[in-house]
């Protein structure tokens, strides 16, 4: 057989590519990564090469947890706290002081930041995401500013929703139970031509902490003090792939929250409405090696408050005729909640380029432009809308400089019209001791811009003409970035053919110049009772551990533990007040799920948090909480059903954040139907 015959034979056998001008498939192609998702560093990386501790909460864990709200899931992340400063004002924090509005974590939905500049935090009830919409949640435990900017100061959370191609064709969920909970959600998939879409609708309703339904009232005894919620959210997610190289995602959302937020015994509650909408478009264009992704999003939240607090004289307990004595030129008038109306907006445009510079070097770099807008007479003392423009330039690289050794280098450069320019670098080295066992060391020096509100805040209760009645929180006019230096030593190992994974971390954090609302200085003549200032410092040391064991499809266990030692002071002209236990020393959660028979599932989560003092709340004793869930799946025609019984906090009631928030035992029944 000669050469021509051989080639002809082999062409005939199907190896046609050799006869074309195309490059043949090589061994490199067969061993290449199958890049489905990017991690918290913006790169396609195996978890063994990521320069940070990562917790992934998947659908199985979400279901087994029996959670009814997304923040509850954060208890499955070592060192993370989930709390309710009001029944429906939910918060999540990690190794940060625990104000009503925690802002040191970047929370994203499919990469879209959902932080609200007006409220200095995330409005979890307005996310527009039902638990069933979530594919998984990826949490970076520790500063991730080099990848995602200022707000990822002490970590980042990315909630990844199901794609319009995944999930059931149609699904409906209904949950009913304690605190008058009535939650409904539905999701349906479809396509129009080449365009695939998913439509989700949810309606959640509850009456908040039970104890608050009973007054005592001082001034409005007939008005019961409540903290209930009714939220309605619509979400449409679309997907279009015009070619092999292009992928376009569009997400549109619209929502309305009616909340009653309790204030104080005197003022009763805010009757507040959040109107929100958002638009997120992302275009990913694949290149020979990597991709270019362009994304734009806009978040809008308006706050409407129609609470009437009654006459000023009644509020300050003076006779109406005395009002002009205290406020020259003014007369007694009804104090209306509409002074708290406001709007919060974020526009964000971003381009990033991911590529493999070589087989050993993966890189991503990009740039973003962001505008935050804020308007509120109550918060700012005027009616103008203010904004902050911010530019970001970022780059992250993963370099395998030796077999089994990876270096991760990243930096985020940010500049804005609040504090100027600053950089947040990170260097990490991962060493694979042997297969599936990795040691990691990283150092991060991150910077965080103060929020737009904390730089411009001049919160006051005013007369209708704007004259202040009570000045509450102001600012000194000075602002600088907050700083954090982090050292981490981590281990990630996989045992028993991957059935058991162990993630451990030792860390040391130095947080400097944190922004806080302080007592005004002695020479401060602004009249505000509190003013924003940089200068809070604290050091944190500790250890985290996460162990997941899933020997088969019947069993799942996941144990999370964090030990945290915090040392810091509230600076004050007169004294330094020790932080004490502003962060709980021990924080444990254990999730277990067992499927004894086909269709049956029993699961539970045990949480334990040692005693602590909430910065803006109360001292609370150690909390041990057990949630249980029993689920039975069944078929009903073409529909797959599941009936669940949930008990939250099987044992005695505990105080959640505030002495008025008594978390008693709660019962829920949840019914789900899925049409495949």
């Amino acid at each position, binding site marked *: 057989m000669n050469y021509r015959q051989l080639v002809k034979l082999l062409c005939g056998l199907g190896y046609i590519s050799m006869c074309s001008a195309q490059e043949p498939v090589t*061994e490199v192609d067969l061993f290449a990564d199958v890049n489905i998702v990017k991690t918290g560093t913006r790169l396609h990386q195996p978890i063994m090469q990521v320069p940070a501790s990562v917790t992934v909460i998947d659908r199985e864990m979400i279901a087994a947890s029996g959670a009814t709200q997304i923040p509850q899931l954060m208890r499955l992340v070592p060192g993370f706290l989930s709390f309710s400063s009001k029944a429906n004002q939910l918060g999540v924090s990690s190794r940060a002081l625990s104000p009503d509005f925690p802002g040191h974590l970047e929370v994203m939905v499919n990469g879209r930041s959902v932080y609200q500049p007006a409220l200095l935090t995330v409005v979890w009830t307005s996310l527009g995401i039902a638990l069933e919409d979530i594919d998984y949640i990826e949490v970076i435990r520790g500063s991730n500013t080099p990848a995602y900017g200022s707000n990822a100061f002490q970590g980042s959370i990315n909630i990844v929703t199901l794609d319009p191609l995944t999930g059931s064709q149609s699904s409906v969920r209904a949950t009913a139970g304690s605190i008058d909970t009535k939650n409904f959600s539905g999701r349906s998939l479809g396509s129009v031509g080449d365009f695939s879409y998913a439509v989700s609708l949810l309606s959640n309703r509850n009456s908040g902490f039970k104890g608050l339904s009973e007054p005592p009232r001082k001034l409005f005894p007939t008005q019961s003090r409540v903290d209930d919620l009714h939220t309605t959210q619509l979400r449409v997610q679309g997907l279009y792939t015009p070619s092999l190289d292009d992928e376009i995602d569009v997400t549109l959302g619209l929502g309305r929250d009616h909340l009653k937020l309790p204030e104080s015994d005197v003022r009763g509650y805010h009757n507040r409405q959040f109107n929100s909408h958002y638009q997120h478009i992302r275009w990913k264009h694949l290149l020979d090696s990597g991709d270019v992704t362009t994304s734009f999003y806009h978040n809008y939240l308006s706050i409407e408050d129609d609470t009437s607090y009654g006459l000023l004289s009644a509020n300050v307990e003076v006779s109406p005729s005395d009002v002009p004595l205290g406020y020259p030129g003014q007369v007694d008038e009804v104090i209306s909640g509409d002074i708290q109306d406001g709007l919060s907006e974020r526009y964000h445009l971003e381009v990033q380029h991911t590529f493999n510079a070589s087989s050993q070097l993966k890189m991503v770099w990009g740039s973003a432009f962001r505008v935050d807008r804020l308007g509120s007479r109550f918060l700012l003392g005027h009616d103008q809308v203010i904004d902050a423009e911010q530019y970001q330039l970022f780059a992250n690289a993963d370099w395998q400089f030796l077999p089994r050794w990876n270096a991760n280098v990243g930096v985020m450069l940010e500049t804005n019209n609040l504090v100027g320019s600053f950089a947040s670098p990170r260097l990490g080295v991962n060493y694979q001791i042997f297969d599936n066992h990795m040691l990691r060391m990283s150092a991060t020096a991150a910077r965080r811009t103060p929020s737009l509100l904390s730089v411009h805040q001049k919160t006051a209760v005013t007369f209708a003409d704007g004259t202040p009645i009570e000045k509450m929180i102001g600012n000194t006019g000075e602002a600088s970035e907050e700083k954090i230096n982090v050292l981490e030593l981590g281990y990630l190992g996989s045992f028993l053919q991957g059935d058991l994974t162990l993630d451990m971390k030792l860390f040391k954090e130095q947080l400097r110049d944190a922004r806080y609302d302080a007592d005004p200085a002695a020479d401060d003549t602004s009249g505000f009772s509190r003013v924003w200032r940089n200068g809070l410092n604290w050091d944190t040391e500790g250890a985290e551990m996460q162990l997941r064991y899933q020997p088969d499809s019947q069993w799942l266990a996941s144990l999370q533990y964090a030990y945290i030692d915090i040392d810091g002071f509230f600076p004050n002209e007169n004294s330094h007040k020790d932080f004490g236990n502003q962060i709980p020393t021990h924080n444990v959660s254990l999730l277990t799920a067992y499927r004894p028979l086909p269709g049956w599932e029993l699961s539970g989560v045990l949480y334990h948090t040692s005693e602590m003092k909430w910065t803006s709340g109360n001292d609370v004793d150690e909390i041990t909480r057990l949630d249980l869930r029993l689920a039975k799946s069944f078929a009903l025609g073409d529909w797959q059903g599941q009936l669940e019984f949930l008990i939250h906090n099987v044992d005695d009631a505990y105080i959640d954040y505030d002495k008025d928030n008594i978390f008693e035992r709660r019962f829920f029944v949840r019914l789900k139907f899925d049409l495949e």
Partner: protein
Amino acid sequence: MRTLAKFTVSFIACLLLLCAPLVQAKVDVVLLLSSDSEPYQDVAGGIRETLLEKYQPHSLQTLMLDSLLSNEQQMPDKHTVLVTIGTRATRYALQEKISDTIYASFITASGLLREIATDEGFPKALKGAVVLDQPALRIVQLAKLINPKARNLGTVVNGSAPNRLDEFTRVVKAQGLRLKAATLIEESNPITDLKRIFSNSDVFLVIPDKSRFNSKIAKWVLFLSYRHRVPVVGYSQKYTDAGALVSIFSTPQQVGRDTGERLVEKLNGKNSSTGIVRLQYPRYFSLSINEKVANSLGIKIDTPAQLKERMRIKYGVTIKDDSGLLMEVVEE
């Protein structure tokens, strides 16, 4: 007496001639690696281990292609047996004709044939090759095992390089099944085309292509696998980790061991050259299973070891592939 002396000399001469192959000098073997990265080192390790255990060459040297190109290492002698590991090393060895006896390993069939096709004449130096691809028959048989009721198998290929579609079409047909295939070009809407394939398939086979094409379709293949509840047969551990129900592949260690064993057979003269390049599929292979995917698809699937055992029992130890190339299923 003279007769006895003549007889004795003749007898000794005959004895020496008969024993000549037994005392034949061991050859020098050089391994030429395309890269010093782990997979290539693992292949080299497998070859080295097998050669030292079963052959003991006169010398065994390992060279890096980049070191050769930068003159950090010396070019091997032309009479050494050269084993090239990976496409780059094979291409260089064939183009530069650095040895009279070349065995190629850890290269795909299409990659090897490209190197042959671009050579000006028959590459006489190339004496044999162990390729990395899995034979179509093996993949189709695996698909039948994970879904015995399967009638239609689905796949997509890259329009700019149709690759192994003809081979799969023939093998699938020979197995009494039908292949639903789509050819995707750059302008194709991958979701639309894949939806059509998935809605008519019982098992989806991923035929490995250029990594660029593989990554373009992997996400949609895996998403639609869930949506249509159709299991996917992938080609690597990473594909299984990403969401394929099962993958079939040969590890670098397995390819190295296989190459070493075939080389020993050649060097011992047990497998003499027939004048053509023997392109051999790897005898050793692995299966990986994603149990989470199996659960979510509601599929009860055996362990990899059980699946391999069933393949061995059902399809035999040695099978003649439809392509005419020898394929063996060997238990490790």
